[in-house]
């Protein structure tokens, strides 16, 4: 066929092809671009044809991967292009531009003239150009004209279908600008169209419209069903729209897609007609020889399956679907196998069919060995999704077996999924330990730290499991070459629990030490501290002491005392000193206390990875229905029938981020002041993962430190959590002055209002008055001396978190009797975070030194400004923020039950404004606010709460904003507000109010004191 002979272009392409190497190619391209530039500069001699030719050359160069500077000259010469080739060139040149390019702004008027003009060819070119860009300014000025073209009866189908898609593009990109009010009627009319090309485009437009708001388009529903009937019966379908014997599969698919946006089909007649069509598709589709025909017929079939699932059809039809899918996953045609597996995964959402799907388990496992990695991935997803308590053992073992032969590309995902399933659905805990150890053994490189941290947490929290885990770890150490992660986990387990095995052969402390020490030369620096801790623990458990072993271990400690790595050196020095303490060692190196229960970081991580929402929620659903043994045991069984001592819980919480802003900020503060390196606190970023990562970091810390903290804490009178950190020098006189009222409660009250009392004791009262403007704030501290004698040595130090910039004006050293001083504090919010600033406040009254670390209520909600949104403003924003990390959803449990009105008040008092009437469901709340910080500027945040009237203690919360950190932090903040119970003193962020003032008695030889001194 004759081509638009652009000889210049052909010559150029041929030149490029003749280039021997990339260098030559680049030279040729540069030469051409130079040529183009000069030609455009001398625009007078440029014909429309030449303009077009040069634009094509630029396009070709652009495709080759060179940056083409579409410059001013070219722009100007194409704007008012009156001739066809120029218009064509103008339309094509837009591929190289982003929607903010100046050219587009300048061209709007001429483009508009083309659209409203009479020349259909020009209309098409203009529409193509607008459709390729879809920019905001185009939408603002052109959408109404494009709408007119679409419904105009005088236009040819060629123009109208382009108009439909152009409108769709403008609407998708700028839903707030394109006004679609009153479009329902027009859409209904458009669906009567006979031309299948226009109908297909209109259907795409309808899909976009109903996906945003199906309510307005109910009238289109029967029309869609009519179209499906027409196609299914092959009535009035012209030959050119029959594709391999099937009446326009695309239109069928699009129409079924549109129907999936309507929640139900109420009209019984429409419903019946639709089900007839669907039934016909389900029954009448066979796998045939012709691949293209197969693809087309199954495109329709799979869409029909989705629609059936969506309509939640009668049980009979559902099982028919599952049966079909069961057939598909075994056929030869790989595409159909692939989609069969994928759709089965989607179908897991429908709980009734799970049992039927399980019947195909063997076939699905076979697919795990399919030659096609795409199919293997789908099989893995499906197995992961269909796993529950009944088949977990089979599936996980199958996954483990597959692990050794699987592609490297899949191993990480595979090991993560196996670990999660093992954790969620473990029939017993020893099996769980087996699985994880096997996993580390087989795919150590792909096992993230979270996985072994988690197994350590489980073992620590379950005494029955400890001997078993230690024994297993011991067995793995016998293997000739083991992964470093295995060294870590076995060293840790054996350090803690090897004494439980002492009577078994090969498990004497000495033997254990030797076998672990053999690994030391092979491991990297981060593992060595773990080994040192293990040695110290072995030494402690060796009863009666074995002098030979002791000398060996001490020699190792000595050797590492001069290690260049600070962590190793510190441990070596500490353990060396400690291990000469004799029996006192046992107190210091006691077993790690139990870990507080929290959501597995693994599961969180997996949720981040998964994007298939259907699959994800299927898993969640299952996890809610059946809580595995593993979780039950750790969740609800108090150790030895008694609740764990508060102090040990607090200890671990020090370094966990789980809603524990108090501790974190204190840690950070302490970090600044003392310069002590404490591993955990510098990393208290908001990332989810850290929640669990940090726990184990606490494990890694010198075990001795742990015990000392406990004794300090349990002995001391600690009004604020700060003293719980071991870093506070022990010789500090703890406060003997009692605060009046509950500090934590005061803090929480101040989070919701702007003035009040922050702290009070018999001598002083600290009040606060704050004023917040966007990302800035001014907080005045009122320090009031309640007594008739002066307060001296007054010191106030602000320990700001990383997200706030704070400046406290000078605080006077002395507060005269009965006087009040004001200390203004300037605050600037840098970025979203829940970290809290701490006021380190001390004064002297008589001989009493009183020191308090008080959280300052400069919390995230202070930088919010409520904003009321209308439905038109809210929904486009809500939809444009789709999915994590910008939009996060969580089911919150243990919410203090509140009537809806009070819940709304709570939100309003947090400066998140409830927008009534936006959510059609009266049990839901929709709220919006603006967040201000230096990094984010003003940013809109949207919140939706779905409550369950039957169970007020749980709700589902969705938070969205344009910044992932903000979304996460705000979500966590709201969660804290919902779960926080002011009446009880054992809230998650509080230390119980000290009831008895008790002077700490720390004997000079107390190991804790010595250790604290060391630190």
């Amino acid at each position, binding site marked *: 066929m004759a081509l638009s002979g652009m000889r*210049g272009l052909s010559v150029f392409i041929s030149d490029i*092809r003749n280039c021997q190497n990339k260098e030559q190619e680049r030279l040729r391209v540069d030469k051409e671009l130079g040529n183009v530039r000069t030609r455009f500069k001398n625009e007078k001699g440029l014909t429309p044809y030449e303009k077009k030719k040069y634009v094509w050359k630029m*396009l070709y160069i652009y495709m080759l991967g060179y940056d083409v500077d579409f410059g001013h000259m070219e722009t100007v010469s194409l704007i008012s292009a009156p001739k066809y080739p120029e218009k064509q060139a103008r339309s094509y040149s837009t591929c190289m531009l982003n929607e903010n390019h100046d050219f587009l702004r300048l061209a709007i008027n001429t483009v508009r003239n083309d659209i409203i003009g009479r020349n259909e060819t020009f209309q098409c070119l203009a529409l193509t150009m607008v459709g390729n860009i879809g920019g905001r300014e185009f939408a603002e000025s052109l959408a109404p004209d494009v709408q007119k073209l679409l419904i105009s009866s005088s236009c040819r189908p060629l123009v109208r279908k382009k108009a439909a898609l152009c409108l769709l593009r403008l609407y998708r990109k700028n839903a707030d600008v394109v006004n679609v009010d009153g479009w329902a009627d027009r859409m209904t009319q458009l669906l009567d169209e006979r031309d299948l090309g226009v109908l297909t485009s209109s259907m795409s437009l309808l899909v976009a419209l109903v996906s945003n708001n199906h309510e307005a388009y109910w009238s289109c529903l029967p029309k869609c069903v009519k179209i499906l009937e027409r196609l299914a019966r092959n009535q009035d379908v012209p030959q050119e729209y029959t594709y391999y014997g099937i009446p326009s599969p695309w239109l069928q698919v699009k129409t079924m*897609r549109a129907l999936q946006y309507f929640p139900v089909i109420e009209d019984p007649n429409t419903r019946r007609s639709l089900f007839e069509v669907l039934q016909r598709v389900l029954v009448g589709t066979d796998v045939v020889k012709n691949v293209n025909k197969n693809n087309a017929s199954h495109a329709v079939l799979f869409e029909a399956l989705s629609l059936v699932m969506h309509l939640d059809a009668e049980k009979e039809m559902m099982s028919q679907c599952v049966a079909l899918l069961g057939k598909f996953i075994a056929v030869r045609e790989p*595409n159909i196998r692939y989609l069969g597996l994928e759709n089965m995964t989607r179908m897991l959402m429908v709980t009734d069919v799970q049992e039927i799907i399980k019947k195909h388990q063997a076939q699905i496992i076979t697919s795990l060995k399919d030659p096609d990695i*795409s199919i293997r991935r789908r099989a893995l997803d499906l197995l992961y999704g269909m796993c529950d308590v009944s088949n977990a053992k089979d599936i996980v073992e199958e996954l483990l077996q597959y692990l050794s032969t699987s592609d490297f590309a899949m191993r990480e995902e595979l090991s993560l999924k196996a670990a999660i399933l093992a954790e969620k659905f473990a029939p017993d805990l020893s099996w769980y330990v087996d699985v994880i150890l096997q996993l580390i053994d087989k795919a150590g490189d792909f096992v993230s730290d979270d996985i072994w941290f988690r197994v350590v947490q489980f073992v620590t929290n379950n005494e029955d499991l400890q001997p078993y885990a230690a024994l297993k770890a011991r067995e793995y150490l016998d293997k000739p070459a083991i992964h470093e992660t295995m060294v870590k986990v076995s060293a840790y387990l054996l350090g803690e629990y090897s004494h439980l095995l002492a009577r078994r052969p090969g498990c004497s402390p000495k033997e254990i030490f030797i076998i672990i020490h053999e690994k030391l030369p092979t491991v990297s620096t981060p593992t060595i501290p773990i080994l040192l801790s293990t040695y110290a623990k072995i030494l402690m458990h060796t009863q009666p002491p074995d002098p030979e072993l002791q000398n060996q271990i001490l020699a190792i400690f000595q050797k590492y005392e001069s290690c260049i790595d600070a962590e190793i050196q510190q441990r070596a020095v500490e353990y060396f000193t400690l291990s000469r303490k004799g029996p006192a060692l046992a107190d210091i190196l006691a077993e790690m206390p139990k870990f507080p229960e929290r959501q597995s970081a693994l599961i969180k991580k997996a949720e981040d990875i998964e994007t298939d929402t259907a699959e994800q929620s299927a898993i969640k659903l299952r996890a809610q229905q059946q809580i595995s043994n593993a979780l039950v045991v750790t969740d609800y069984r108090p150790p030895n029938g008694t609740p764990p001592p508060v102090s040990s819980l607090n200890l671990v919480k020090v370094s966990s981020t789980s809603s524990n802003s108090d501790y974190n900020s204190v840690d950070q503060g302490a970090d600044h002041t003392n310069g002590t390196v404490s591993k955990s606190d510098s990393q208290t970023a908001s990332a989810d993962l850290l929640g669990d990562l940090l726990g184990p970091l606490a494990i890694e810390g010198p075990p001795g430190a742990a015990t000392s903290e406990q004794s300090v804490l349990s002995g001391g009178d600690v009004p604020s959590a700060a003293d719980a950190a071991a870093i506070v020098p022990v010789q500090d006189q703890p406060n003997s002055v009692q605060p009046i009222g509950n500090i934590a409660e005061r803090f929480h009250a101040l989070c919701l209002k702007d003035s009040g009392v922050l702290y009070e004791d018999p001598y002083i009262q600290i009040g606060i008055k704050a004023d917040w403007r966007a990302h800035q704030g001014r907080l005045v501290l009122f320090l009031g001396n309640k007594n008739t004698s002066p307060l001296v040595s007054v010191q106030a130090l602000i320990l700001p978190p990383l997200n706030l910039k704070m400046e406290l004006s000078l605080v006077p050293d002395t507060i005269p009797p009965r006087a009040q001083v004001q200390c203004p504090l300037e605050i600037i919010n840098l970025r979203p975070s829940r970290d809290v600033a701490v006021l380190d406040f001390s004064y002297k009254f008589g001989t009493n030194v009183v020191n308090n670390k008080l959280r300052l209520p400069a919390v995230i909600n202070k930088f919010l400004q409520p904003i009321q949104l209308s439905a038109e403003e809210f929904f486009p924003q809500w939809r444009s923020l789709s999915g994590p990390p910008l939009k996060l959803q969580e089911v919150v449990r243990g919410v203090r039950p509140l009537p809806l009105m009070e819940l709304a008040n709570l939100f309003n008092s947090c400066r998140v404004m409830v927008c009534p009437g936006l959510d059609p469901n009266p049990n839901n709340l929709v709220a919006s606010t603006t967040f201000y910080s230096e990094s984010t500027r003003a940013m809109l945040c949207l919140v939706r709460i779905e409550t369950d009237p039957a169970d007020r203690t749980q709700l589902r919360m969705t938070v969205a904003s344009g910044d992932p950190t903000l979304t996460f932090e705000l979500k966590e903040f709201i969660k804290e507000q919902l779960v926080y119970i002011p009446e009880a003193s054992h809230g998650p962020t509080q230390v119980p109010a000290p009831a008895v003032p008790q002077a700490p008695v720390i004997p000079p030889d107390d190991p804790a004191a010595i250790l604290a001194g060391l630190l």
Partner: protein
Amino acid sequence: MIRAVIVMNTQGKPRLAKFYDYQPVEKQQELIRSVFAALSNRAENVSNFMEAESIFGPDSRLVYKHYATLYFVFVFDSSENELAMLDLIQVFVETLDKCFRNVCELDIVFNYSKMQSILDEIIFGGQVLETSSVEVMKAIEEISKLEAASNAISLIPYASGWSRR
């Protein structure tokens, strides 16, 4: 919506690359390279689907077809039906076939502009515009006529300038 259409040969050289969401040129090349790296690892007689989220981000799917020395790749999101996209590749190729009579890679190399025009008649701003190759051909012929007409007119006064180049 369809996010990208890539045609490349089995050595990874792009023959056509169209991204319906603006991507800077370096990003385009990187995407093309990643797609090629993944495609070249795939055997014959496997499915036409390939995992694309690691390359194109969440909610992206990829189908491809392999014809002689060429890969035709469509990338799209979950609002499209995978098999229907595969059918669309077939329509695209069949149209090219009609246009060039047994299309081969060389046709496509030298008729880069033609192929673009055909694609533009099938996909518009990331949405399916036309699915009947008969209709696409009609539109293309119309464009060819217009081009021929305009070329004839404009070439006369500049004939000398043309041969000089």
